[in-house]
């Protein structure tokens, strides 16, 4: 069996998996579709301890109702329970998902409806089939087809992403500047030390800020960016710009928001140019 045989086998295997996945999704029997998704409510927020780890998230007590039994559950984000909660205030809604009939296996989720149809794996299988076909084309017809095969989807997705990203960044900055800033305070600096395979130790410091919005919401949040010298920021007073609709979107440094917006745009445009260049070079080489 030559390369063609193996690539045909590759495409057939992942094509079958994709079809199976889409079939299960249509039949409504994927794990994602059998997952119960409910909105929970943060009932209590505890302050993280100075020097503790940022991995566990801000300690919260969450309540949610199981729709099938109507029973109320009160739980905490102790141990492995889904997405890390990095911004919390009493009354904040937070997604909770769990397998049907097993509310004790709850997981917190920031995006409650992500992958609700269970098509993430079939989509990935289709991507692998596509990669296999591009490999066949590149082997049979030459390297320009590899550039075309990878450059075209790259460019299309980049062309869709760049304007969306620009609009989102503009909206975010407009929202952050729509209200006057509030005073906040660094209530803890969380420390994580890890050691790599070579024995090198690295330490990360994550400040935790607490601020109260003009609407009276007391927010506790990780503030990984925007604070100078985060290691020694414990107890420091900070000025917080926040979005009135969603206090989870905030910054202690508006200037850094502008800088990151510019760098993101430059990165996106460079990525788009790389894609366009790949397509152009591939097309010219094929035409010759």
């Amino acid at each position: 069996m030559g390369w063609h045989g193996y690539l045909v086998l590759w495409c057939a295997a992942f094509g079958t998996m994709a079809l199976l996945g889409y079939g299960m999704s249509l039949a409504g029997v994927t794990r994602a579709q059998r997952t119960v998704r409910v909105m929970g409510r943060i009932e209590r927020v505890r302050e993280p301890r100075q020097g503790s780890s940022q991995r566990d998230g801000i300690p919260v007590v969450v309540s949610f109702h199981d729709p099938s039994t109507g029973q109320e559950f009160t739980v905490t984000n102790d141990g492995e329970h889904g997405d890390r909660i990095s911004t919390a205030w009493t009354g904040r809604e937070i997604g909770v998902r769990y397998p049907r009939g097993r509310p004790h296996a709850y997981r917190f989720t920031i995006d409650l409806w992500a992958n609700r149809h269970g098509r993430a794996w079939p989509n990935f299988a289709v991507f692998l089939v596509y990669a296999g076909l591009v490999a066949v084309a590149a082997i049979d017809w030459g390297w320009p087809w590899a550039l075309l095969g990878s450059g075209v989807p790259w460019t299309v997705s980049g062309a869709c992403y760049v304007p969306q990203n620009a609009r989102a960044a503009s909206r975010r900055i407009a929202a952050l500047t729509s209200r006057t800033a509030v005073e906040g305070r660094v209530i803890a600096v969380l420390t994580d030390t890890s050691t790599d395979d070579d024995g090198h130790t690295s330490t990360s410091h994550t400040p935790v800020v607490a601020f109260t919005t003009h609407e009276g919401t007391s927010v506790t949040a990780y503030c990984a960016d925007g604070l100078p010298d985060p290691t020694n920021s414990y107890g420091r007073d900070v000025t917080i710009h926040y979005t009135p609709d969603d206090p989870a979107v905030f910054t202690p440094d508006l200037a850094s928001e502008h800088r990151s917006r510019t760098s993101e745009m430059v990165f996106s445009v460079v990525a788009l140019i790389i894609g366009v260049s790949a397509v152009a070079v591939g097309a010219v080489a094929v035409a010759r």
Partner: protein
Amino acid sequence: MTITAGPLPTRTTPGALAGGFLTGGVIGTSLAAFVVGCIIESLPLCFAGLGLSVVYGLLFFLAGVPRRLREAAVVPRTALAMIESLEAVGGEATSDIAVRFDITVAPNDASAYRVEFTQNINLADLPDYRPRGVLVVEYPPDRPWRVRIVKRPTPEWEDRAAGARLDSVPGPAMVSETPGGCALGFLTLLGLLLGAAVVILLFRADLFAQDASARPPSSARPSVSSTSSTTVVSSASATVALGPDQSFLDKGELRRAIDALTKGKGTRPALTVVVQERLLSVVFAPTGTQAPQFDPRSLPYARFPALVDEATTLGVRSPQTWQITAYRLTGSLTIRVGVTGADGAASLEADGRGKVVRRTPAR
């Protein structure tokens, strides 16, 4: 509160030991198959090695599904517990350190019991854990030794723990890790070695033949090798003739012959390489010649069978003989494949990488 010593957990079962042996065997077999496949240039063997590990991993995963579903369906039980003793056992270089706890667990509706287990605790939280301190733990009711400290209990359990006073239970304590890990590790290693040995034994002929053919001929005199092939080497040319029932299209045969001819003599450039069913001829370039020449080892021998196959599809009915000629008369290396049959001949030309550049079908 009733206080009695609980049962000890079950030890490593023969099934777990057999599973470890099998897993080691599969890892050894697949790794050895991959490596041996690379050495003897057998793509199917490489893929078989990879496929075996993938299939075994899949089967292992599927076999564990019922158990995992059963375990996941069990609602964990929460209980108060009291620390009898604790000891740091490792992980000082990170924020978390492994702490070995010996605690008394006091469930509401069952007998209290002692258990030992290890859990990572953040350095900042370590002062919360002291001997005689009360904490909240969680465990599956069917495996009470798999205790986990609840670092962030719900307000209800937090209040219970704040006002609780528990009594110690005398030992022995259950242990959370199943003993017998040493035997399991030994059997896994044994399986790994046996698996690798089986693959090497099965393919020893190919491996050793490769070694034998890689050995340079001792002199330029005609020599008859132990296999049914004849090698004649002189300063100007070399030929290798295979015995009956052999072909240079057999897997790796051509590469072995070329390696045997060129090894130990430095890089001897060739003017022409001609391959037929059982005959290989190399004409070496005379020293100081200006004629276009090439390294005979650089030819894409692995592509030769496919090129011959392709040439036979160019309209020759009943193909009888084939010949591959590699030369470099026009500057670039050319591989010409000719096939003759009862009613005509066809040929194709490929470049130095074995890519077909011209086809001349039979007329």
